[in-house]
């Protein structure tokens, strides 16, 4: 797979950066380097056409607020690695697959279908609002949760970048 406007140096650079970030955060990349580079070409292509790195294996809408859950690493990565040994694209895998003792198998789509996405988002916001207002209104600081890795912190605003998984501020939700 090659795309116009994406050069191989950028792919290699992104590959090295991704590998380092993965290792720092305790994640592993798929041991098939060529497969990973193909996904990176997809990520860079998406960054080029949508201005954010939407998941290469999912159809992005082109509207960032609708696609935040599938900006790589997506909100579903950790659950899929836990349950299936790999993220949906098989970019990130568990130890056994990284070490070659197990093989990647197809991962079913965890993201809700188009028709249910709106309602799901509204529900998530509501739950947080009720929990935050009714039960924990007297906390000295709000608690923020990183939707990518689950990291929690109590402060006025979520951090600019998640110290655990490097997700950006926009991926945090009010937890308490």
């Amino acid at each position: 797979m090659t795309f116009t406007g994406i050069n191989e140096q950028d792919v290699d650079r992104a590959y090295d950066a991704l590998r380092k970030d993965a290792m720092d955060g305790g994640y592993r990349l798929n041991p098939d380097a060529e497969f990973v580079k193909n996904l990176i070409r997809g990520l860079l292509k998406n960054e080029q056409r949508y201005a954010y790195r939407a998941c290469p294996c999912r159809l992005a809408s082109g509207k960032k607020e609708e696609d935040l859950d599938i900006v790589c690493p997506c909100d579903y990565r950790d659950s899929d690695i836990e349950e299936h040994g790999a993220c949906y694209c098989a970019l990130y895998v568990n130890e056994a697959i990284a070490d070659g003792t197990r093989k990647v198998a197809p991962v079913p789509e965890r993201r809700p279908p188009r028709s249910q996405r709106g309602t799901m988002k509204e529900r998530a916001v509501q739950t947080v609002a009720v929990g935050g207002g009714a039960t924990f209104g007297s906390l000295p600081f709000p608690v923020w949760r990183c939707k990518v890795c689950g990291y929690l912190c109590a402060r006025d605003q979520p951090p600019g970048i998640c110290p655990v998984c490097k997700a950006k501020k926009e991926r945090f939700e009010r937890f308490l």
Partner: protein
Amino acid sequence: MEHVNGTDKGNVVLYALSTCGWCQKTKELLREMGVAFDYTFVDLLDGKEQDDAMNRVEKFNPAGSFPTLVINNEKAIVGFREQEIREALGQ
């Protein structure tokens, strides 16, 4: 829709994304098997065309995920399931 020539195994349509690794593997498998098929990269379609394609995908695969391989307008194989694809399209 792009057409790939090969042995006629009925109406074989692959809905794929141009950026997706498993879609690519599925396409390569079909080529390697020498099956005649049509494919479309849904991410490269515009507005209404993309919407129509998504509606068709969701008819066979409610999750609306890729790759979705539709055989004879009745059966869908979702994801790169090599074994299943080989069985369905005989070899």
